């Protein structure tokens, strides 16, 4: 359908057409629904009480069905009330905002990480080294955080910048190797992840970093001056709201990425190299420089995640631990894929996954459903979104222009 015919039709007709032909947004929505449905099946199958009712399914099917319904309802209700709004626990502004605060807190590192991976995608690079860049960034931010005491604002800024620096250097290394020798970024970043993890383990044994009062592997705590200020603690009874100004950093990073990709010369070069490296080279662009810049900025953004981990809310003592990365390097990949590597899409993807994680914790506490199911649902959403023909086939959509994948197939040689 061309633009002119689409304009003539009424808006309702257009929405129905889009639904029949399976537009991109509908495929995404159906992917989420389908992933949640698979999650529901997992909840039912793994519940021992519900399994019990299925043993006499054919004599009294009502029991099994109502037990299944109850199990799923309890779990998903906890998911919703933990992530969005809990009507039973909303007697003042602070408690009403509690779930949203948790969702945004979880979404902050996901957004920053998703932007980082998405930016590399745009330049045709697959950065699975988020974990390593995050760790190096966290180490740098932690070091500045516990050595520096200064006027509020300066210390935290210095610590965040140290995180950016660490991540950017570690990321640029990948770009440099790729540009100079053609070493595939995927394998290099996997190796650098392991190297960073081993380096972190060593750092936590040195006297510079190791917290002398603790026996476990944990660093010194970041000084109070270097902590990211909380955003909602001024509300009455709001001291429990964890949302911190990392969210502002993430918002800033979103605007920066949008500007970089759609308004700057460098961003144009990145996208050109990502779309067709040979054509970009013919047009006089330096492919190597673009790759190095893309990996450097991507690593820098992952470094911000490392900084927000240490300076924010990851653990009560605001210190480095061997688990400081919390798997974010890999979750960020799914966020970027769901957001189709665009900054705006990444915002929505991060909010969705942040909500799933915040709600997942409530689900674990209230319904006894392990939070691991959130990882399953996230992976399934991305898998379905990546394969629009599968969704179209399942829901009998007629299929039209296929939604653009975030990354074209290339393999090791590309």
């Amino acid at each position, binding site marked *: 359908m061309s633009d002119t015919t689409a304009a003539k039709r009424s808006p309702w007709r257009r929405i129905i057409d889009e639904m029949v032909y399976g537009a991109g947004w509908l495929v995404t929505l159906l992917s989420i629904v389908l992933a949640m449905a698979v999650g529901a099946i*997992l909840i039912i199958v*793994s*519940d*021992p009480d519900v399994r019990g009712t299925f043993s006499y399914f054919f004599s009294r099917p009502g029991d099994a069905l109502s037990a299944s319904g109850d199990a799923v309802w309890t779990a998903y209700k906890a998911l919703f009330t933990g992530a969005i709004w809990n009507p039973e626990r909303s007697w003042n502004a602070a408690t009403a905002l509690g779930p949203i605060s948790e969702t945004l807190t979880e979404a902050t590192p996901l957004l920053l990480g998703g932007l980082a991976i998405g930016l590399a995608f745009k330049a045709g690079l*697959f950065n*699975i080294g988020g974990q390593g860049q995050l760790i190096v960034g966290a180490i740098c931010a932690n070091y500045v955080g516990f050595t520096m005491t200064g006027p509020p604002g300066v210390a935290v800024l210095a610590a965040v910048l140290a995180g950016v620096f660490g991540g950017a250097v570690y990321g640029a290394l990948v770009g440099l*190797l*790729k540009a*100079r*020798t*053609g*070493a*595939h970024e*995927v*394998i*290099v970043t*996997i*190796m*650098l*992840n*392991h*190297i960073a993890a*081993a*380096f972190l*383990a*060593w750092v936590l*044994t040195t006297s510079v970093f190791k917290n002398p009062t603790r026996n476990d592997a944990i660093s010194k705590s970041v000084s109070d001056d270097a902590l990211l200020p909380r955003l909602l603690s001024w509300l009455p009874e709001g001291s429990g709201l964890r949302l911190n100004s990392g969210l502002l950093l993430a918002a800033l990073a979103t605007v920066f990425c949008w500007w970089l990709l759609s308004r700057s010369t460098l961003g144009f070069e990145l996208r050109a190299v990502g779309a067709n*490296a040979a054509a970009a*080279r013919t047009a006089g662009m330096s*492919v190597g420089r673009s790759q190095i810049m893309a990996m450097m900025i991507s690593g820098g953004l992952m470094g911000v995640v490392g900084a927000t981990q240490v300076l924010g809310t990851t653990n009560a003592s605001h210190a480095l631990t061997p688990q400081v990365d919390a798997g974010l390097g*890999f*979750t960020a*990949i*799914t966020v970027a*894929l769901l957001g189709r590597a665009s900054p705006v899409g990444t915002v929505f993807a991060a909010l969705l996954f942040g909500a799933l994680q915040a709600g997942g914790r409530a689900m674990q506490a209230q319904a006894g*459903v*392990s939070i*691991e*199911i*959130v*990882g*399953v*649902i*996230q*992976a399934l959403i991305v*898998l379905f979104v*990546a*394969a629009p*023909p*599968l969704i179209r086939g399942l829901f009998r959509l007629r299929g039209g222009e296929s939604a653009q*994948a*975030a*990354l*074209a*197939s*290339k*393999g*090791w*040689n*590309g």
Partner: protein
Amino acid sequence: MTATVLPPENLAPVAPEKGRGRLYGGVAMVVVALYGLWAFGLGPRTSGTDTTFALNLSSASGLRLPDLTFPSAPVAIVLCLLAASCGVIRILRVLPGRWNAVLLGGYLFCFVMAFLAWAAAAKSLNLASVLEATVLASVPLVLGALAGVLGERSGVINVAIEGQFLLGACLAAFVASTSGSLVWGAVAGVLVGGLFGLLLAVFAQRYLVEQVVLGVVLTMLATGLTGFFYERVMQADPSRYNTPMAFAPIRIPGLADLPLIGPVLFQQNIIVYLAVALIGVVHVTLFHTRWGLRTRAVGEHPTAADTVGVNVIRTRYVNMFVGGLLAGFGGVWLTLGLNISFNKNMAAGAGFIALAAVIFGRWSPVGALWAALLFGFAGGLSDAVQLMQTPVPTDFLRMLPYLATIFAVAGLVGHVRAPAADGQPYTKA
């Protein structure tokens, strides 16, 4: 992996580039060996002391070797000089590929032994237990790498080996515990790996999803599924659903009595023997059978293979399924081979190391074996050296194989090249 992404002007002068690589590599070898000479041979730690290498496992029953005791400093000096001469040879002479590998192997051997002579100065290091740790750590890497080789030789990149490990380990532990039968557990673990490989192939071939991304997402799916299953079902009653079980070691008469390597290699359980056999089977299948020729043709030039009547898609599905079986078997090893109950995320990145072994081993089964042994050895060595209280932090030893892989893919040790159609879905025009 390397050449095709270089700008064309860098492609033309191949020979000088290669010569320069040889020079840099050789100089690096000499410099590192001389550093070793200074640090290991002439340092205070080794001066006037003896190093002892124990050469028997505590469980060894056959011939026992006497402990090897020698003065630390002179031996370290000689070994480092030998290593340095390997580097000099590499600078001076152009060697054919096989001799190059031998030279590099000799260099590594001399350097590592010099390091050990230094690390264990005035102490005793059990070499046999390092070798055993190497073998135990290498088994899943070899099986996972064989899975990767089969897939990539047919043109499908399998980054989901980690996921196959986890699924195989989880289901093997669960089925073995509930049924009480190790064999059924192993069968279940192997099969789930195969089915997961098939799933990857379907998404890659039918829905044309980028394969590296796909593998990462599928690994996350498997991590979530096994973690959820573990916490929700297995943890509810560990004695019923998740008891540690293992195949009993099988002693090969005669060979198991050999000193040093006997108990390490010939007193293991069936999975180790099968893994060794599978290396041979995959090698012969890939390079000496009609199926292997077709697989390689599909991986290099699917259009040409299709033209002569090879069913490209079917070849890839079968290879990914069989590869998945092997990776699932690697997962079975993690629980039923090592006598460990399943735990969340227990593969701990081994699948990604197996992927590195595929590339480090240049997409060949035998190369993958050497790469896996190298990775396994570095792990076993750093565990053993940890007990020696050396000034070198063991975490740095742990990094070495990863650094080596980076050097390998960056072309500093030699160029690696993937099958030409690796990672590209085949669609008929």
